[in-house]
């Protein structure tokens, strides 16, 4: 066992009936880093986290948190982790302060310690002013902040967040992302799941890209980008159905791949400056007009597209 690892996952598996939700994944998070699990809906992120949190038993494989096995030492493992569930899990009829206080007690805090931690966390999530209001009356973003706060009270070594920014306003999202970075600065290890590649890119030391129950790529942001080489993605709006022109474009020098849907051709190229004029020339010869051009320098989205042939987000 490696003392520098906060989270260690080996060959973890989980099926629901015939559906293999998690198919033997392995990854590690070093102490003090932010690791993102990036993947589309249904990839198996929440299932993985439920196993780490001790909510569901794995079918196979092992995992440990701060050196405590989740199967043989679940109590110790749980004591050093704070879990932020994907859906808000709070008591709507209690105030923010009462919620935090209750969850603090469940993590074993008492008395003066509990009181001071509740006050600190209220500060961190920016709800000191509203602490006596019912959580049920809060906006989505404020609820999300309390939802996170409840996992921070016992200053856990590891914090696991499952899509904490889904469906909230940009301001609350900013607040949360800044909080996460602040937590890391304080030395916490963060396991963060998301299907927003911008969040993974901004926050993470390492990113594990997950799809269909498997980790299909792992590395730092730059390492992952390099997987797609120097590819740039061009989205070209066409005057006619795009399929006709694709075979010609596949032949153009500097084009790796050309696909199309809904009158938009997506072309992966090595250098847009060199290739674009050739695409225009080829289109002109075929009598196809190009109405619009979008140039996307490589990002995690293109990595995912490159690896799976599909877009990361369905929305």
């Amino acid at each position, binding site marked *: 066992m490696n003392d520098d690892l906060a989270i260690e996952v080996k060959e973890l598996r989980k099926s629901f009936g015939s559906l293999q939700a998690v198919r033997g994944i392995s990854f590690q998070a070093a102490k003090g880093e932010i690791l993102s699990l990036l993947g589309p809906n249904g990839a198996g992120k929440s299932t993985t986290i439920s196993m780490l949190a001790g909510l569901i038993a794995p079918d196979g494989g092992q995992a440990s948190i701060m050196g405590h096995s989740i199967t043989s030492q679940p109590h110790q493992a749980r004591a050093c982790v704070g879990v932020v569930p994907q859906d808000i899990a709070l*008591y709507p009829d209690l105030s923010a302060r009462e919620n935090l206080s209750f969850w603090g007690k469940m*993590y*074993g805090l008492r008395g003066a310690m509990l009181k001071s931690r509740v006050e600190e966390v209220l500060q961190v999530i920016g709800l000191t002013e509203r602490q006596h209001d019912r959580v049920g009356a809060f906006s989505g973003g404020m609820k999300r902040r309390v939802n996170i706060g409840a996992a921070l009270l016992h200053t856990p070594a590891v914090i696991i967040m499952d899509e904490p920014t889904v469906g909230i306003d940009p301001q609350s999202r900013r607040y949360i992302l800044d909080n996460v970075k602040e937590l890391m600065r304080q030395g916490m290890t963060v396991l963060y799941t998301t299907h927003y590649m911008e969040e993974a890119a901004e926050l993470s030391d390492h990113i594990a890209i997950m799809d269909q129950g498997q980790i299909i790529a792992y590395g730092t942001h730059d390492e992952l980008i390099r997987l797609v080489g120097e590819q740039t993605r061009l989205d070209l709006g066409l005057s006619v159905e795009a399929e006709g022109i694709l075979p010609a474009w596949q032949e153009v020098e500097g084009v790796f791949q050309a696909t199309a849907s809904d009158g938009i051709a997506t072309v992966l190229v090595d250098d847009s400056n060199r290739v674009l004029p050739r695409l225009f020339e080829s289109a002109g010869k075929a009598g196809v007009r190009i109405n619009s051009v979008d140039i996307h320098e490589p990002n995690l989205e293109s990595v995912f597209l490159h690896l799976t042939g599909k877009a990361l987000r369905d929305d």
Partner: protein
Amino acid sequence: MKILDIALNDFTRSVRSLFAIGMMVVAPLVITGLIYVAFSGAGSENSDLPIIQVGIVNLDQVPADVPVALGKTLADMYFDESVAGYIQPKIYPGEASVRSAINNQEIQAAVIIPAGMTAALMANQSVPPVRILQDPTLTIGPMVVKNMAQSLLDGIYGGSIAVQVHRQRFAVHGIAENSINLQSIIHDYEGWFTAFQRELFHSPQAALVLVTPQSAGEEAPSADPMAGILGQIMTGQMIFFAFFTGAYSMQSILKEQEEGTLARLFTTPTPRLTILGGKFLAVVFTVCGQGLVLLLVGRLLFKVQWGTPTSVLLTMLGQVASATGLGVLLISFVKHERQAGPVIGGGLTALGMLGGLFTVGMQMPEAFTRLANFIPQGWVLHAWRLSLNGAPSAEVFTTCLILVGMGATMFAIGGLRFNRRFA
């Protein structure tokens, strides 16, 4: 203690829920209070007493030569001017017509006087029973009507015994029996008894006081007869809502499951048994709290004499144990919160009915009364009756023991089912 924290958290949430407070405490008090206001004659003397509409079917045909007509005497009682303030009688030709009148809510109760009643009594044979039909949603009006009939019949049977005693005396002394002296005896007796009835039924409360406690214990000497009746009515209400409270507060575990807080609890370093234990303890707290509030308010507002401290304590213990046990058991069969409503509402209403909670103070068929022995609510009601009637603590203790046993069994089954579901 995390188990206490969890229990107190649940308890706080129940107490804060307007619906919960309404159903646990306000509803039983309001129902009892309404009955109180209706019958206590608060305000002017008779004006706000409810009028009871009674249908009367007299099938007792008497040959012209027989001097007495029992059916007519019974029917006339409801037409007597002494009860005109609260009884509005109407004659119906037969059972079918009087039943439809009840169904159409034209009347609240009906008295059906059987054919051959006078003849049977005169021939010293067993008398076919007088039947009381009632609107099933009502209790008080029909109870008054029934008690009036009961009391008159008691008097008549007493009279019939008196007549027989006279006949035997005449026979012993060799006096020839003739219809003239028999008639004069009956006439004297009737005169006295009618006066007695008039005195008796000056108000519906008076008729209600006749309710005989069904327990073996002796009737508690109660200064205020109204308090005795309210005690019984309130007992029924309190028990019904205590069981409701048990099931309702156990239901919070389903709510927590759906809100995700239960899963979140499982991610904290808290053993699952502690979490479940906390939930169960919360039910105990809530049922205790509800019972105590009702006992106190019943005492202060309705002057109910619940019994000696020991009896009350024992009975409360039985009530809390069985209401908690049944709540845990019932909810262990429910998967989603939305199913809980029908299970709690339907199940508890049915059990309450079978346990006799809604027929407090009424004479029910024996089979029905026996059925209550299989129902926890029936035993709690029995325990409170003993306590209200000042029965010895030992007797209350036995009932309490049965209730705790029932509660523990139900709790064990329900608890095991929950443990299997969540662990």
